[in-house]
């Protein structure tokens, strides 16, 4: 924890100097300075990430597949070093448990296919009412393909998982996997991962956490929370698009059949049959996202140089401030009130349509998201067709939040 007087005084301001690392924050939109409050959809990239990627392409690039030459070896080293970084980031016991994917979506699909092929008809997968489509549709598809059951754990009106209900869903011992979010991209809810994992394990189930939002904001330790699988996506973590991560316990990864077939995931290939490489390579077919892997490594270095203590403190203080300021906007209703929450706030405002809110904010340079946020069933549960959503990154300032609140007030005054 940064104990300097400034940081102690104001954790929001403590990260202000980092804005200089994000060139895009100097852009103007519709003639107004960009206020980017859509980081939960995808975060902006610091110059450290941009430079790492362009340096790779300018000075040290080749395919990593078994090249015996210098450029290939150095590029392989650079990519494999990122596996160590990722293992360190989430407290994975072994670098070999880190599988690179395109994004969270592919990581979950990988588990749904490969671990899913080990789930027998009659068994069940449990998800929750507040899942992103990425942690919902793959399980639906598995259900329809494999004849398993899909159970949905309800949430409270505050937007928290109903743990007793989850317990009941687990009680018949038929559940093979609980797949839930570690932090909701709509409500900001942080789920009690350790308790969920304990409940799942007690019922003989494995547990997957969708950490897409969580890893951005807090230090995650997959061992501490008792996860069996953990997924996240690089572009929300200030890294490039095209790169994501699946972590899985080694014994599970080893028991699972491969997902995609091709180069690099094999040991030997004969027409009659092939044998697979060891984990994690078994799950990484074809030329990986080399440049993006290196970019992800730079993002992790960047974040770790700041430290999760400072990042979490910034986010907590900023979110508190935002909730307070938004409560002052007449007619504004924040959706959900989870006790433990991250820097994502969904809201509606009287009967002003969220799309009108988003466009009017955009005309003032403020980028937020409006819609169902890839969580249609959650919208139905909440009784809304869409929400507006502001979400924060480490570069978000108090003034930006204030600008949001003030502009929302003006927007509302247009409509009444």
């Amino acid at each position, binding site marked *: 924890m940064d104990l300097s007087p400034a940081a102690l005084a104001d954790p929001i301001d403590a990260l202000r100097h980092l804005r200089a690392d994000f060139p895009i924050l100097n852009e103007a939109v*519709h003639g107004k300075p960009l206020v980017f409050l859509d980081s939960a959809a995808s975060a902006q990239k610091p110059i450290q990430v941009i430079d790492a990627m362009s340096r790779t392409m300018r000075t040290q690039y080749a395919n990593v597949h078994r090249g015996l030459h210098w450029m290939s070896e150095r590029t392989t080293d650079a990519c494999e070093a990122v596996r160590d970084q990722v293992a360190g980031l989430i407290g994975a016991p072994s670098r070999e448990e880190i599988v690179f994917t395109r994004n969270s979506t592919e990581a979950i699909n990988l588990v749904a296919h490969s671990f899913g092929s080990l789930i027998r008809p009659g068994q069940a997968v449990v998800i929750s009412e507040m899942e992103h489509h990425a942690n919902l549709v793959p399980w639906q598809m598995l259900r329809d393909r494999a004849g398993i059951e899909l159970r949905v754990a309800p949430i409270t009106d505050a937007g928290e998982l109903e743990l007793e209900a989850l317990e009941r869903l687990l009680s018949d011992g038929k559940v093979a996997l609980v797949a839930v979010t570690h932090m909701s991209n709509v409500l900001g809810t942080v789920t009690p991962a350790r308790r969920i994992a304990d409940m799942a394990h007690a019922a003989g189930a494995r547990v997957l956490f969708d950490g897409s939002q969580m890893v951005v904001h807090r230090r995650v330790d997959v061992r501490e929370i008792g996860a069996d699988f953990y997924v996240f996506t690089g572009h929300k973590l200030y890294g490039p698009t095209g790169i994501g991560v699946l972590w899985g316990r080694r014994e599970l990864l080893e028991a699972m059949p491969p997902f995609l077939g091709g180069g690099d995931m094999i040991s030997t290939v004969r027409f009659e049959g092939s044998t697979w490489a060891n984990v994690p390579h078994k799950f990484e077919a074809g030329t990986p996202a080399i440049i993006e892997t290196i970019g992800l490594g730079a993002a992790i270095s960047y974040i770790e140089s700041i430290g999760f203590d400072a990042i979490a403190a910034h986010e907590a203080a900023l979110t508190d401030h935002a909730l307070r300021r938004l409560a002052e906007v007449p007619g504004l209703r924040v959706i959900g009130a989870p006790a433990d929450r991250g820097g994502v706030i969904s809201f509606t405002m009287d009967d*002003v*349509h969220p*799309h*009108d809110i988003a*466009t*009017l904010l*955009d*005309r*003032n340079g403020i980028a937020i998201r409006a*819609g169902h946020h890839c969580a249609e069933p959650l919208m139905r549960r909440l009784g809304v*067709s*869409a929400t507006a959503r502001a979400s924060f990154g480490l570069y978000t300032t108090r003034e930006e939040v204030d600008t949001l609140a003030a*502009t929302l007030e*003006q*927007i509302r005054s*247009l*409509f009444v």
Partner: protein
Amino acid sequence: MEQDTLYQRQVIDRARAPAHAGSLDGATHTGEGTNPMCGDRVRVGLSLTKGGTVTAVRHETRGCAICIASADMMAGLAEGRSALELGALSRQFGEMLRTGEGAEQVGELGVFAPLHQHRSRIRCATLPWTALVEALDGSKDR
């Protein structure tokens, strides 16, 4: 925030208190447009003379301010025009939304010209016209 050039008083007032909302008793033609992306929906009912002139239009719109205002202005403009004229107007309107130019040729609808800077919202303004064109084509009635 200064007076917004897109969300002008005119647009917001029409959205809040549309003049042509509701269902049309004895409509000869009806049409519907939906935007699955945001769940918006416009239903249009109209009466058409034998000669092809629109005599009355009503719309039932669930959607954002842009969509409701656009539907209501459309309804107002449609009365007394022929199907042919309205087809042309619909095309001109679409063209203006794409380019931001030609506001003077579409009457009241010219207020939506700034929408060309918000490409993903253009469909909100054209959805009523999808419904109207469907109604005029009479596809639902045959």
